[in-house]
């Protein structure tokens, strides 16, 4: 099902079947050019498939934005080991809710993307790792997989092309950390979900120590249209080096929250005002987290930006997972920082000292500070502790906790000062926080 009305400014590539009757069924899929990308790819050499994906300027939709074609190119295709296609469906970044829609409304698009990746790297098996809380998606996906098998779109000798491909589903058990690719692989293998030392990267040694392509649900879902309509067509939808469209998840203090497929480089202010219908209750905009809770926050003045990887990197934040969290003028930024830290302190896997101890410290410190028990020196301390974690943790989770914290203190120092001893939170009356 869909959770919001589509917007006329949307460019529907990945979401083109959203809203169709039985959009998740193989019949609907086949009736709307389904699996044509795969059939086209089957006629191509692996190198040509990878070139096509490179041409599309598709960049990883999980958050880091690594060029997908290049990633596939790292897989040693001639390795005697089996290769695997793994889907990261552990969507758990606060503010992000797009992958679930892609699986729920168009699971075959994901399967087709996996199969094309399989052709590109000579893999014959794929795993879809789905966030534990998304259990209901497993039924939808399993049904789609069963349909594909029964109609000859999965299994041995797919549609007589001589290509074999199997797909398995696996749920996580409720750990944000398992969205990190190497922790996901550990969890997939049935072990404790902690990240691995890299190198080797999954392309060389991933699932079961075999070469592995690991991408986000949205990334794979973009692949069928790239093969079907050509990489250049996809690239032209976006900005240079940022091909195609992106599913943006608008949430927070906004009139029309929802998931919207917009071209890369779409202006953030327009996204809030036009697509999202502006800040709710006629309030003024205070801040935006542009790509999920781990991205540094933008002040209202900084929001006139093209939403693509490079522009946001220049603005010292990230496009991340596309979770745009809008905060109105009543938002307590100390409380927002505290809530974010509470999340990371809960979700740290505990493997390395700086993340485990740093998030726990910051959580306690921010709670105390928000409750009015802070001292002036604590404001610098919050930033210091976060900076002590930054770039020093085992995996990016520590950075994900540190970066927003540093930005909150730097950009909203005045609000922190307003919380100093004895003074209650000036926004105590605000009944909604953007991130809950």
């Amino acid at each position: 099902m869909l959770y919001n009305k589509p917007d006329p400014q949307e460019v529907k590539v990945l979401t083109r079947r959203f809203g169709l009757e039985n959009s998740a069924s193989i019949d609907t899929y086949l009736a709307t050019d389904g699996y044509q990308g795969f059939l086209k790819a089957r006629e191509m050499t692996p190198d040509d498939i990878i070139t096509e994906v490179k041409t599309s300027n598709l960049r990883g939709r999980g958050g880091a934005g690594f060029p997908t074609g290049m990633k596939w190119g790292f897989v040693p295709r001639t390795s005697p080991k089996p290769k695997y296609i793994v889907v990261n469906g552990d969507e758990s970044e606060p503010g992000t809710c797009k992958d679930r829609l892609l699986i729920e409304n168009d699971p075959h698009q994901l399967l087709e993307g996996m199969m094309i990746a399989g052709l590109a790297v000579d893999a014959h098996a794929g795993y879809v790792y789905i966030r534990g809380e998304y259990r209901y998606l497993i039924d939808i996906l399993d049904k789609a997989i069963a349909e594909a098998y029964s109609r000859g779109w999965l299994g041995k000798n797919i549609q007589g092309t001589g290509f074999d491909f199997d797909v398995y589903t696996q749920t996580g058990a409720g750990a944000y950390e398992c969205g990190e690719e190497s922790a996901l692989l550990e969890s997939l293998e049935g072990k404790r979900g902690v990240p691995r030392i890299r190198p080797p990267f999954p392309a060389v040694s991933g699932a079961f120590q075999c070469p592995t392509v690991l991408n986000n649900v949205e990334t794979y879902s973009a692949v069928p249209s790239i093969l079907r309509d050509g990489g250049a067509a996809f690239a032209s939808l976006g900005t240079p080096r940022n091909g195609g469209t992106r599913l943006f998840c608008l949430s927070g203090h906004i009139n029309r929250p929802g998931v919207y497929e917009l071209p890369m480089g779409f202006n953030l202010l327009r996204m809030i005002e036009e697509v999202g219908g502006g800040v709710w209750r006629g309030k003024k905009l205070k801040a935006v987290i542009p790509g999920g809770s781990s991205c540094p926050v933008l002040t209202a003045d900084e929001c006139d930006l093209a939403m693509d990887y490079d522009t946001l990197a220049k603005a010292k934040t990230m496009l991340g997972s596309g979770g745009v969290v809008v905060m109105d003028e009543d938002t307590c930024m100390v409380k927002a920082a505290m809530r974010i830290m509470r999340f990371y302190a809960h979700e740290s896997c505990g493997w390395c000292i700086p993340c485990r101890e740093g998030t726990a410290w910051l959580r306690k410190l921010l709670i105390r500070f928000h409750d009015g028990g802070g001292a002036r020196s604590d404001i610098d301390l919050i930033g210091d502790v976060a900076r002590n974690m930054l770039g020093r943790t085992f995996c990016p989770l520590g950075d994900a906790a540190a970066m927003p914290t540093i930005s909150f203190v730097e950009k909203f120092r005045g609000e922190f000062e307003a919380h100093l001893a004895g003074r209650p939170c000036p926004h105590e009356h605000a009944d909604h926080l953007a991130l809950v």
Partner: protein
Amino acid sequence: MSDLVHLTIDGKPIEAPAGTLLIDAVRKYGIEIPAFCYYEGLALQAACRMCLVEVEKMPKLQTACTLPVAEGMVVRTETPVVADARKAMLELVLTNHPLDCPVCDKGGECELQDMTFRYGAGEGRFNETKQHIDEKQWSPVVFFDRPRCILCYRCVRICNEGMGVAALGIANRAVTSEIIPNEADHLNCDECGMCIDVCPVGALTSGPYRYKTRPWEMDHIATICAHCADGCKTTLGVRNNSIIRANNRDHSGLNGDFLCVKGRFAFDYGASQERLQTPLARVDGKLEPISWTRALKTIAAKFGEVRQRGGAFGVIGSNHTTNEENYYLQKFARQGLGTNNIDHHRTGDVITLIDALAGKGGQLATVEDIYNAPAVVVLGCDLSHQHPMLAYQLRANVRHHQAQIYPITPGPVREDNQATRSLRVDKGGEVEALGSLAAELKQAGGVVILYGDPVKGDAVRKLVDFGESLGVPVKYVALVDYSNSRGAIEMGLTPELLPGMTPSNTGGMRIGQMLASTDLDVLWVVGANPLKNRAALAGKPFLVVQDLFRTETAEQADIVLPAGSAYEKNGTVTNVCGQVQMLKKGIGAMGTKTDLDIFALLAKEMKLDLGPATPDALLAEIRTTVKGYDVVLAVLATGGAAMTGVNGPVAIDVPVDAIHSANDTMYTSGSISRYSKALTSLMEYPGELYSGKSK
């Protein structure tokens, strides 16, 4: 891998073999990169983030523990950025640390203390409530205090990788992460205490050692463990003339960091309440205390009288006494008492091996060989139980060199988990089963074969023939039971052989014959318990027993002399591989005398001239007169292990029926272990392991 690469550390050019981790490469240049989680030989973790260094062309700080050196790499370890990172990690790890150093066992030898002192901040800024989790007791010997734990996972890895037991894991996540034992609230494991040993802080502490002392109040005395034949080096922590702790403090010696449950905890047998503290003599059928003077005079008079009238002596020596004592005892028997009735409990067929290898040389494996061999075959022995250190080396060999392992045993053994292939055979069929491995062993390019007591006599010859047929270097270890079983054979404690495995060419009784004989006038038992599983002697000889305890044999003695334990004397012992190491006296025990002192006093009393009777003088004599024992004194004196070179041929008929291992388990060690409070407090690991006893 052996290509040298050149790099620059803090402006200093260094070189290291390609593939070396940066943290290892810098060490020999006197540069320290601090780390908690890095532990040589175990899997990498990169969890503590203490070893972060600056590497040119890399945007972020890098962990030196995971970074292989590369040509032209430029590394800086002492910049303000690195110093700041180290300080930050310490500040963070101390946030939830209880800072109970004044009452922590680890205080004074704690890596966290040392690092905080060297790299840390003088002041913490953590102003919140610390997380508290109650301390837990996992077993009589292992305690875990989570607040002190820094989660370096060394314990988890040593248990999993080093011991092959995997009794420890991690529960929960984030700051509530916790090390947990395999049985929810307690441990079911070897109780080896390796987890305690590798713990850099006071999170894992030893039951017997807790709250006994501050580390700096102990004397640390390096000696050799008194239990099995592997010859682990151990450092005794001694305070007020009692041993409080044993661990291999400096990780030197054959065993490196390893000690098993016996080595680590069973040093306490000598402190047992049942320890003899005065000589005993039979008065009206009961053993009553007498003075040393009277005891020695009585024995000397009896020995003198029997010798005078040409009576028969029997002498049973020990597997635990030193080479010097054994050497002196056989001299006493042969020269002083004029008898060749001398024997000891033989636990493995070393003699046939030496004979079969005559003239070949260099085919006796050392402990290092077991760690380095491309393939290792274990015949008829539950290695993890009977030779824990050799099994540890074997597992390390698999981890570090991917060695091929082939256990050939009657039942399952732990080595099966590392094995390339395991063969199950009936006892006695071990050597025959080897044939099927010939091709694989040839391919491996080098083999070490360890064999237990089922392989003896002709089977050993067949084994050596098999080894010869492979055409690759093959080395052997004849597995024997106790700390100086090997030395007992080589010092001449058998009727067939004089010291150095020189045939005596004189008849003499063996243990079984002595116990069954009705003609013996004197039976002198030194550090042995031949009546342990036997009702009584057949005859009525004058029975003299030297021991630590009133053993079954001592109970039947006419005179019992309280002897010193291995931790109470100097001397040398020879381990299962034939490597000689030095014992160093740690403590004294009231009322006792070392066996050597007892021999010397008896000789004096009997006016025998058997030469000087001090460990040093006897070692000098052994080194110059005993074949194969011309070992380098400096090696011994500096705590090293010197390989002996005993060589064949040994042209005697080996009495194979006299050879039988006691098949001790991980928790037993002949008649000694039952007096160890620590050992008897522990449940035996009921794992899947076959114990020789069940066969």
